[in-house]
């Protein structure tokens, strides 16, 4: 584990990102942009399931927002991995980092359960989702201030 994390930190592209003046803030900004899009669309979908915006047909509403959310999740994961790689061993040693990963993992499982279980408790999935995603965001924001 230690060696693998050290090896990540030594990668050429990671070394470049480590001391870059432009690339790191740009990757950081993209991470924030993606998280903003992800959490916003997730919350809107959750509120829809909880009964808001019922003047809008659900299939269209969900189809559009889910596309944005999934795309944002991919961008957030890629940029997150890049930010992690710069100080991989330090982040991996932080309980807060794993708390954030755990929250994202639970939120992802909740999404998978929601789309797989037919006639499941939709409002429960929505409540779990609207709780976990903002908590993951909060954990991530604290992470940026403790390393």
């Amino acid at each position: 584990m230690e060696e693998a994390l050290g090896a990540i930190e030594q990668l050429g592209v990671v070394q470049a990102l480590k001391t870059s003046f432009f690339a790191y803030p740009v990757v950081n900004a993209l991470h924030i942009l993606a998280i903003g899009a992800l959490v916003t669309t997730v919350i809107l979908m959750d509120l829809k399931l909880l009964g808001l915006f019922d003047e809008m047909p659900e299939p269209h509403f969900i189809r559009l927002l889910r596309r944005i959310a999934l795309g944002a999740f991919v961008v957030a994961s890629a940029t997150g991995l890049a930010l992690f790689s710069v100080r991989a061993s330090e982040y991996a040693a932080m309980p807060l980092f794993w708390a954030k990963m755990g929250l994202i993992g639970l939120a992802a499982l909740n999404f998978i359960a929601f789309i797989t279980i037919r006639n499941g408790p939709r409002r429960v999935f929505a409540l779990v989702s609207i709780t976990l995603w903002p908590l993951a965001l909060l954990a991530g924001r604290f992470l940026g201030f403790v390393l």
Partner: protein
Amino acid sequence: MRLRTLLLSIALATMAPALPALAHHGWTWAVDELSELTGTVKAVYVGNPHATLDLDVDGVVWHVELAPPGPTMATGFTEETVKPGDQVTAIGNRSKDPNETRMKAVRITAGGKNYDIYPARVPQD
């Protein structure tokens, strides 16, 4: 409709938690007075988001925070400037939490040379 507006407001309010505490950017978490630490280097990192130096001070590890890599390297301080085992002195602001061994450095002295990470904050003598 009014209930919905209320629900929506609550939802938005819960997702905007502006929590300024715990901040390790800037100096908000550190005391105003400057103090000095001398110890041996355990680890040095000069990179984003900011450079750090771990110092062993009488058996206690202090986490010394420098500036982002650009300003840090502009003083001449790089990852090659010091290596584990070197004797280093850091002047800076300690954490307000007395149990937290963390300092925001304004000057690093290593190998007889001063590296003024935040020159405006280094006391003029």
